[in-house]
């Protein structure tokens, strides 16, 4: 099937969603996604961040779709034409969605441990407004303790349901979920039970905001001061790959996470033992530095990247001087010829 997204054509298989097709193309036309997670079945369709305009339904029925579609749950059709970043309607819709998501989100990025790798921060950086129009008081919840490893900040939650799906699909016994309805809905454990399943730590990685963070890393450092390395260890937990990213500060491992790709999705899930219990560098085999997008804040103050020399069109003649002049710096090597010598002695005016 042939799909066109922002004027870029791609061949995809039947059953591919528009978002997956856009990610195959890559670049700026990829819609942002807060709730969709390719590794979790049934995710998507909740946050409405990935809305796109379908300008042509398919080859058989070329009428445009009347409303903007959530690209993560809309399948591709043959000959479909989609406008993502190039459409003003989409841009406006994403701005509105961002504004809605930020209504109840507290402004505590300076305190939050997710700052710097937060999807909502990226989204509001690109689509957000500088000022809030919301004058009412923000919704707040009582802090709740959900165990020794995971910190829950319900105020920051955007109800994407990713963590519920992690508990459903990776662990055999889910003890937390979304309680209450409407504005009161909140992530909670049933009668404050601790979450202690071996794969529960992946909730931290899938959380797009700072609602679920690592308690062992709480306020230790900001993510951009750490140096991330790919590392692995022989993990005996069944189902755990042992491949992680360790976040180091000097010789100290401050945090262990899964390896996240450019869409902030982990490549493989890891167990709690890898994540929380092994903070000694001797436990890990360091493979090398983890690479991030050029524009990521994690690359700040990182001078190990290779930089390209800036080419200036006139550099040849001006910055370094002409070839013949550079040679003349050594006078005896290239003596002046007769005419030049005359000019030099008697003036050439």
């Amino acid at each position, binding site marked *: 099937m042939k799909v066109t997204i922002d004027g870029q054509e791609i061949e995809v298989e039947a059953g591919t969603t528009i978002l997956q097709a856009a990610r195959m193309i890559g670049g700026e036309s990829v819609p942002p996604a807060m709730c969709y997670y390719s590794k979790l079945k049934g995710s998507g369709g909740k946050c409405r961040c990935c809305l796109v305009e379908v300008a042509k339904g398919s080859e058989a029925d070329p009428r445009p779709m009347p409303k903007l579609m959530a690209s993560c749950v809309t399948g591709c059709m043959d000959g479909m034409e989609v406008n993502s970043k190039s459409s003003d309607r989409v841009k406006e819709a994403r701005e509105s969605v961002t504004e809605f998501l930020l209504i109840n989100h507290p402004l*505590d*990025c*300076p*305190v939050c441990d997710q*700052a710097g790798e937060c999807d909502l921060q990226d989204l509001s950086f690109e689509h957000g407004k500088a000022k809030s129009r919301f004058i009412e008081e923000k919704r707040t919840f009582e802090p709740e303790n959900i165990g020794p490893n995971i910190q829950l900040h319900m105020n920051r939650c955007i109800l994407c349901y990713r963590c519920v799906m992690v508990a459903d699909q990776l662990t055999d016994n889910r003890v937390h979920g979304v309680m209450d309805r409407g504005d009161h809905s909140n992530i909670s454990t049933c009668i404050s039970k601790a979450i202690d399943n071996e794969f529960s730590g992946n909730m931290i990685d899938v959380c797009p905001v700072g609602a679920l963070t690592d308690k062992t890393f*709480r*306020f*230790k*450092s*900001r993510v*951009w*001061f750490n140096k991330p390395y790919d590392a692995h260890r022989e993990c005996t937990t069944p189902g755990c790959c042992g491949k992680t990213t360790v976040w180091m500060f000097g010789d100290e491992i401050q945090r262990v996470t899964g390896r996240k790709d450019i869409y902030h999705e982990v490549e493989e899930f890891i167990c709690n033992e890898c994540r929380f219990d092994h903070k000694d560098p001797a436990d890990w085999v360091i493979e090398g530095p983890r690479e991030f997008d050029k524009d990521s*804040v994690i690359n*700040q*103050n990182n001078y190990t990247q290779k930089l390209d020399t800036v080419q200036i069109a*006139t550099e040849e*003649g*001006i910055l370094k001087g*002409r070839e013949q002049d550079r040679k003349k710096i050594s006078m005896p090597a290239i003596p002046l010829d007769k005419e030049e010598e005359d*000019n*030099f*002695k*008697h*003036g*050439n*005016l």
Partner: protein
Amino acid sequence: MSIEAISLSGRKKLVSNKEMTFWERMYIVAIVKGLMITIQHLFTRKVTIQYPEQVREMSPVYRGQHMLKRDEQGRENCTACGLCALSCPAEAITMKAEERKPDEKHLYREEKYASIYEINMLRCIFCGLCEEACPKDAIYLTTSKVLVASSYDREDFIYGKDKLVMPLDIAMQNAQLKNTN
């Protein structure tokens, strides 16, 4: 136009060591020309001032020593978010964060605070980018005339919270000022 003929500065001059004529060798014209320049300067504005009696006006954007601000209730504003350290081009700022305990609510404004906050004054270039970056209005560059006090030890130039945090009496004065207004 060829590159050789372009004068980027506009002051390109061809030099020569041509022999001088008789009049030029007398130097009288040159001396008179030089004197004229000297006399001209007698009538221009003086660049110096009579210092102890006259004092130069401070620039409105003058940036002196840093101060970590307290709010009207005397609580520290800084939440150790690290944006000042991130923006610092000289990498002079380091900090360590800690969680506020329930009985410290009168000391720190936010849930997290800087337990260690250090500025290396030998590195600092007083550019003011930390002030610019701060989301909590915590760090300010004051108009103090002393930038860095001199010392013989390098350790003395690493300013910790003892030297940087605003003294409590100034915070109280600010609160009083705000109440009267």
